[in-house]
């Protein structure tokens, strides 16, 4: 009695005859190589398997790895992890050996009973013979398969266990939080536009002042500028505005066959498909299988549009050709052509860019740019298609943006003049304060700054000489580098010395020194215009990168301007302290904990990298 496996046996024998015999450790065929690609050298059988490749330490015991052991491990991995285009690298095999040994030593290797549950020959005996044959072709036997599974399972378990053991303590979370939430106290002098405004309002500005302001202030000019506008004539084919009765009559007079309609559709299928009404689009993608006669196509959904275009669409072409052929193209000509061909005529008078974008949005977002770049009187180059619309246009008139005459805006300018001039005067006052402070400061720091410059020049010359630089450009590079470092050092020197001059100048000039804080910095992108005035100032200080960059005791060496509070500030950082833990929001605690956990978990992953593994297990190659 023949076994039911006989046909299979026969097939396998035939396959064995047809397929080339493959020795267990025969090399895989060489892959095709991309030009320039780095070829990983194939691992070859060792000439001397007993030669010691290296040693490593697991636990307290040193172990020896021979070339033979290494090659056997490679043979274990090869059927599962090597590809013709990606041979296994030596490092990969080595790291596998080390990690497998480590995992085994740490107790992560599956027990023999577990291996039975992972052995497909035992879990699925019906397929055992087939599997064994497949393995034979791949150069695997049961023992090698189980060895591979045992090692990779042990390594995976070890990695998972260490990832699970990552812990983060509250102190680390707090340390991480507080360095971004330090509490600052500042003292500042305010140069407010409001104070300057009071003085300006006390006297009436002269015509000369106002004219000079009008001619030089972009703020004022933008308020009253007459924007660019265009006047354009358009002839439009709009299916939505077609006369339904006329259309019905035309359909009766000239029936359109499926073939003709489909041919027309296919000429511009993408445009027509985009015209499918959005509420019907879902019909094109039914959620379940439908009979053939219930399937809907885009052509069916836009069939009416296709017919409209066939019947009437060439009207726009005829109108366009007619207008184009005329000696002189005028608006009246376009209107006449529109009427003659049953199309819509539209004249848009003095449209600005914004008006084009809103009132003429159905003609597309780029219409204004196209029109603006043409000369008055010119006709567009071709018919424009925008969704269901087809149209052409002629630029009748173009008025480029202009400023009105001073006399036309003189009276309206006064308020703007006062506000802008007040803000500008406040800025000048703040700058003046800084200049006086720097003057006093310069007298003290000049010798030190000269010394810094001298040392920088010397260092530049030394570095250039050491590098053998001779060319003027090379020498200049070294000088520039060291000059930049010197400038920074001088800046920091001034910032640290400025406070005492700041205090003495504030006192001598009788300025009001105000304090603010303690506060933490917040960079939240809030619209400060919507805040109450006290909150506007608070938010300004809390979001200032310049103040954040200062050390305690330092002063800003340039005024900080704020258009919202309309003032300029010179700020000294009084002190900075760590916030208490109870100020930390619970959500921040968890958010930072996630960040630190992520670092700890990925840090545990990094331990399995080749470098870390070899270092940890003290791999020494011979």
């Amino acid at each position, binding site marked *: 009695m023949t076994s039911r496996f006989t046909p299979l046996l026969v097939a396998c024998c035939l396959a064995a005859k047809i397929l080339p015999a493959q020795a267990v450790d025969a090399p895989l065929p060489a892959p095709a190589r991309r030009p320039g690609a780095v070829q990983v050298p194939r691992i070859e059988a060792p000439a001397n398997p007993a030669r010691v490749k290296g040693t490593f330490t697991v636990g307290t015991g040193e172990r020896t790895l021979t070339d033979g052991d290494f090659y056997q491990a490679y043979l274990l991995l090869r059927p599962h992890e090597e590809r013709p285009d990606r041979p296994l690298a030596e490092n990969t095999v080595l790291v596998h050996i080390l990690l497998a040994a480590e995992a085994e030593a740490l107790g992560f290797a599956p027990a023999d009973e577990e291996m039975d549950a992972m052995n497909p020959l035992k879990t699925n005996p019906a397929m055992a013979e087939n599997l064994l044959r497949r393995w034979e072709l791949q150069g695997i036997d049961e023992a090698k398969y189980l060895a591979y599974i045992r090692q990779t399972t042990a390594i*995976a378990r070890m990695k998972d266990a260490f990832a*699970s053991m990552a*812990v983060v*303590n509250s102190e680390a979370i707090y340390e991480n939080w507080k360095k971004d939430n330090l509490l600052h106290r500042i003292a500042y002098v305010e140069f407010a536009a409001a104070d300057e405004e009071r003085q300006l309002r006390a006297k009436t500005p002269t015509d000369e002042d106002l004219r000079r302001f009008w001619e030089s202030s972009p703020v004022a000019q933008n308020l009253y500028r007459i924007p660019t506008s265009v006047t354009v004539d358009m002839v439009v084919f709009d299916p939505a505005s077609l006369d339904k009765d006329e259309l019905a009559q035309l359909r009766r007079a000239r029936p359109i066959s499926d073939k003709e309609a489909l041919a027309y559709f296919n000429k511009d299928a993408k445009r027509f498909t985009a015209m499918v009404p959005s509420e019907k689009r879902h019909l094109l*993608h039914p*959620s379940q299988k439908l009979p053939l006669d219930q399937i809907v196509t885009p052509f069916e959904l836009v069939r009416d549009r296709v017919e409209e275009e066939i019947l009437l669409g060439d009207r726009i072409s005829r109108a366009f050709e007619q207008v184009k052929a005329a000696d002189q193209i005028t608006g009246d000509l376009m209107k006449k052509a529109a009427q003659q061909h049953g199309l819509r005529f539209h004249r848009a008078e003095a449209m600005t860019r914004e008006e084009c974008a809103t009132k003429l949005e159905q003609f597309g977002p780029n219409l204004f740019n196209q029109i603006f770049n043409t000369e008055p009187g010119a006709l567009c180059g071709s018919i424009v298609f925008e969704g269901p619309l087809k149209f052409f246009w002629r630029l009748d008139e173009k008025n480029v943006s202009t400023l009105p005459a001073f006399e036309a805006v003189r009276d309206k300018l006064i308020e703007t003049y006062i506000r802008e001039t007040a803000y500008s005067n406040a800025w000048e006052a703040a700058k003046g304060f800084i200049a006086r402070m720097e003057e006093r400061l310069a007298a003290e720091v000049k010798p030190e700054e000269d010394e810094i410059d001298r040392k920088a020049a010397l260092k530049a010359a030394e570095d250039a000489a050491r590098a053998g630089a001779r060319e003027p450009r090379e020498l200049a590079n070294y000088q520039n580098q060291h000059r930049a470092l010197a400038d920074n050092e001088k800046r920091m020197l001034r910032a640290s010395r400025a406070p005492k001059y700041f205090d003495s100048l504030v006192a001598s000039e009788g300025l009001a020194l105000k304090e603010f804080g303690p506060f933490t910095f917040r960079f939240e992108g*809030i619209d400060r215009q919507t805040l109450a005035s006290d909150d506007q100032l608070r938010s300004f200080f809390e979001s200032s990168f310049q103040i954040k960059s200062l050390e305690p005791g330092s002063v800003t060496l340039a005024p900080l301007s704020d258009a919202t509070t309309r003032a300029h500030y010179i700020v000294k950082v009084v002190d900075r302290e760590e916030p208490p833990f109870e100020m930390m929001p619970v959500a921040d605690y968890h958010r930072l904990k*996630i960040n630190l956990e992520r670092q700890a978990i990925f840090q545990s992953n990094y331990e399995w990298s080749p470098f870390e593994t070899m*270092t940890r297990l003290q791999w020494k190659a011979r």
Partner: protein
Amino acid sequence: MKISLILPAAALLILAPVPAPGQDKPHELAREFFDVLPRKAPSPSHPPAFSHSIDWGDMTDRLGSIIVRGKDTPIEPIAMLMLGVSLFNSGEIDAAQATFEEISVQFASHPLVDRRDKGGTRLIDSLKIQCAREIAFRRTNEVRTLPQPELDPDSDTTLNFSKGPVVIRFYKNAAPLHRENFLKLAKEGYYDRTRIHRLVPATLVQLGDPNSREQDLSRWGQGGPGYTLDNEFSLITHRRGTVSMYRGPGRPRSHGSQFQILLKDQPNLDFVQTPFAEVVSGIDVIDAVSRQSPNQFQAPVDDVFLNGIAPAAKFR
């Protein structure tokens, strides 16, 4: 989360019932232990699970049971180490420290216990140091946490998409402002006939923009009600089925109306966006949408409308 007794692991050994002989084979216990492990080593397809999304109380109970049943088996020291970690993460620091001390004594020469890091510190010692620091910190600082989120079964609200209905459920004790805002907008018809305007295949869909009613795709994703919401972070972790308020990159606050329905776990969004509901049925509707390829504006090629929202009876 179940509350574990604050006892060292040794006490667990005394109090737990003795298993019947031969009932728990060592290899079965080992398999059970590795199945219980809260995290896989991270990989591109496997984002790490963070502490707040793990039920450490339950973890402690299960590990305790494995340890009792696995006494004198190879899994015992590994499970005890993990128990210490679990106790630490559930806030029972004294118990964690006692567990690590016990391991130091009972398994002093075990390779895992003795394993050293780059700086030469033993694993067990670095865990003990963590405990000591935490105990010292908690002596002078009160470490607060957020409540465990609970879903409200009476809050089921139906989103009627053109492809089918999706039912979402809100939380009793998380993101109340987001829930109220969402329901207010729903009742006003704000979301009616809007589209899913952003699709990341197999990852998420985004909707809730009134601009998505228009034909100009370049404006989709830019609309909103004119206000934003304060973040309301909680211990809800972003996973498949989570409904989360969108928060644009670099924005400090939640969007006022646009929200996302997630199709795969995304713990990276925890404490970045505010989740406020879960899908309880109809996720397959969103899965079907997600199988489309998005166009160049990241919108589904074929429109998917949110025709309307039917709030739960108690919200009407």
